[in-house]
């Protein structure tokens, strides 16, 4: 095997392909990136950890086709550090020689025939706009659990019904729901899948920058996989197994009380007031006619409070939240105003965005947050 490639192209592709490599691989070969050079002038890079696979294609001048397996992390570091000149990669004996300008590296190879077969990319089920997808994923994954002891809640439930995709996630303290549209490959396509929030985030960041993302789902045929493809890069990930709890029913049917507040000032005030809220202690929001008062801290501890303008419809109400959960929701909205809809001080509060103080709220994104209750 022997090829020449542009340094930036190589560095980008290797970095992306190697990004999911495990620090402690289950088998030594899984620390590798497989490089395939074909006679048509295409280099195919691949990585796999039994759960997630990544593949990228780049153009190169291939002198001799062939396949090698080298340490992914090391190749990524080397290719990023090389001077900006064409890079020559060649297999000599059982070593790979990387030459670039005056730099020369010798890498050990691992046995290619011990490398597992990568799962194929599932057939394309539809296409989504990269920007919309990236935004939607960020809004939903904020509510996913990071606690691996309950894998179900580390996933994002994806429900597809025709042209509508609904993303849902919860860590049992908050629940985020986001609806977006896409173009299904076949009209009336319908599917349900549970995708790791980490995977979705990663895909959105690495594939979502402009353009379209192809999405493939294969379920019910043994290995349940989701695949994403954009700009010559493909990644597949095993779906999370298990029955996701029924969560849509948790959104309240009717909310007798609601308040509207300007989002940015509320975020700023919440950040200031929560400075005195120690870990696990709440920030309280008290709504009355024309204003909301934020306060935190009590008794002998440090205290803070701040008042903001607010429009309140219904009775006065006070609720307490975990400050970080509050800020997560407000930050995810991305609208000038936020509507908080209440039923009871101890019941979940629904956050939706709206464009103006007296407008209607947009239910495409909903963030449901459960309050903190004071004991004794």
């Amino acid at each position, binding site marked *: 095997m022997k090829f020449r490639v542009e340094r930036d192209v190589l560095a980008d592709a290797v970095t992306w392909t190697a990004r999911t490599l495990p620090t402690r691989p289950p088998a030594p070969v899984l620390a590798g990136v497989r490089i395939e050079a074909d006679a048509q002038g295409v280099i195919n890079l691949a990585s796999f950890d039994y759960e997630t696979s990544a593949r990228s294609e780049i153009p190169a001048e291939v002198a001799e086709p062939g396949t090698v397996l080298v340490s992914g992390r090391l190749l990524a570091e080397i290719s990023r550090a090389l001077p900006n000149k064409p890079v020559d990669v060649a297999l000599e004996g059982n070593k790979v020689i990387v030459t670039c300008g005056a730099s020369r590296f010798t890498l050990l190879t691992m046995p290619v025939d011990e490398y597992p077969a990568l799962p194929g990319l599932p057939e394309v089920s539809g296409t989504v706009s990269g920007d919309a997808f990236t935004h939607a994923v960020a809004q939903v994954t904020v509510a996913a659990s990071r606690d691996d002891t309950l894998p179900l809640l580390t996933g994002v439930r994806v429900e597809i019904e025709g042209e509508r995709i609904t993303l849902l996630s919860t860590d049992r303290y908050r629940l985020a729901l986001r609806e977006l549209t896409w173009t299904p490959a076949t009209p009336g396509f319908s599917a349900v899948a549970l995708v790791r929030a980490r995977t979705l985030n990663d895909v959105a960041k690495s594939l979502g920058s402009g353009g379209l993302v192809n999405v493939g789902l294969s379920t019910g045929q043994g290995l349940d996989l989701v695949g994403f493809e954009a700009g010559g890069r493909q990644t597949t990930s095993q779906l999370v197994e298990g029955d996701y*709890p029924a969560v849509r029913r948790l959104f309240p049917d009717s909310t007798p009380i609601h308040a509207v507040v300007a989002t940015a000032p509320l975020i700023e005030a919440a950040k200031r007031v929560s400075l005195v809220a120690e870990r696990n*202690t709440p920030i309280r929001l008290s709504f009355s006619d024309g204003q909301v008062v934020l306060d935190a801290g009590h008794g002998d501890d440090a205290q803070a409070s701040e008042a903001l303008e607010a429009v309140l419809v219904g009775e006065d109400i006070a609720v307490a939240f975990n400050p970080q959960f509050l800020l997560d929701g407000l930050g995810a909205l991305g609208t000038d105003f936020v509507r908080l809809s209440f039923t009871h001080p101890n019941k979940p509060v629904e956050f939706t965005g709206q464009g103006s103080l007296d407008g209607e709220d947009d239910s495409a994104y909903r963030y449901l947050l459960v309050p903190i209750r004071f004991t*004794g």
Partner: protein
Amino acid sequence: MSGPGTTVLHADLDAFYASVEQLLDPALRGRPIAVGGGPRGGVVLAASYEAKAHGVQGGMPGWRAARLCPELVFVRGHFREYQRLGDAVMAVLTDVTPTVERISIDEAFLDVSGATHLFGPPATIGARIRERVRAEVGLPISVGAARTKHLAKIASQVAKPDGLVVVAPGAERAFLDPLPVGLIWGVGPVNQQRLADLGIRTIGELARTPSTAVEHILGHAVGHKLSAMAQDEDPRRVVTTHRARSVGAQSALSRRRPEPDDVRAVLAHLSDRVSRRLRAKGRAGRTVTVAVRLAGMTRVTRSLTLPVSVAATLTLTEIAERLAWSAIEDAAPCEITLLGISVSNLSDQRAIQLELDLEPTDPWRPGSAQGAARSAVDASMDAIRTRFGGDAVGYLPVVLRDGGAVPDEFRELAEHDL
């Protein structure tokens, strides 16, 4: 340690329960009395000095105490009075200095370094405390003064009954050396025997033994601590905001085969006491440990660390039951002689993050719908008990159980968690 003067005081009421009984009933004064138990059974909880002179001790079966001292008078305990009078004594101490660290119902450390310019040297302050407690509360109290807590505590033991001992700076070694090792805080009969087996009977002898040798016999942590104490090294300060790191309760049982209903009743009773104390202080814990003592004195423990802190009675009972059976089944077939529960990894729980009602619900999580319901029931029961007394309401297996040999009120005091 080159330090200030003898500004650490240890104040300890003499034969507290018995002294209170003698205070309440003048007919008992000057007579040998035992609190708890009777000539035919039960356990003596405390003895007056007159009874101690005959060899009667707390923890002794009543029949044995009666045999040692035929004229011994058995009296029932007045537990509310103990709490009230204990508090009254602490109020006297707090008059002297705000730096009072109460370590049980009847003893406390004081740091009087800020009070000497008002009331004179520590010896004068100690004498004044003893006079005031005698005059205002009517009880005898012994006081030890020294540079460290450990030494002050030994001094107060040496001062008993009804005395004052000040260990002058520089005279510590001469004071400590001839004293028996049993006076060191934490050296019980077992360690005392182990040390005696090595020929170590006095603190001086312990101090001259290399600490590695002591650690070899008593284990690293205990050995190291004891050597340091025997060398009169004690950096601990008097702290007023003492926070418990764990809350526990245990119950000695007559030797028996473990039966589900019985084990559940005992654990429910212990959980009830532990969780009430946690809630009273706005605390909750993530780690639950259950101790089971088997016939033959082997002690087995099992513990579980949860993702969230718990303080609900029913939750603690269920966790303890699971842990206890895990220990019992590993030792089966067996007989048990003690069950204990302790909750550690404590944190404040003045507020509970509620949770969405996800299936399957986990009643152990305090924020789940069922968990919140348990907290609500506990809160109501706590309120009723505060108003109408501990027996006013309770969980079923506990309420139906006969009272054991030792009244609960006494346990609450003895588990000194104040």
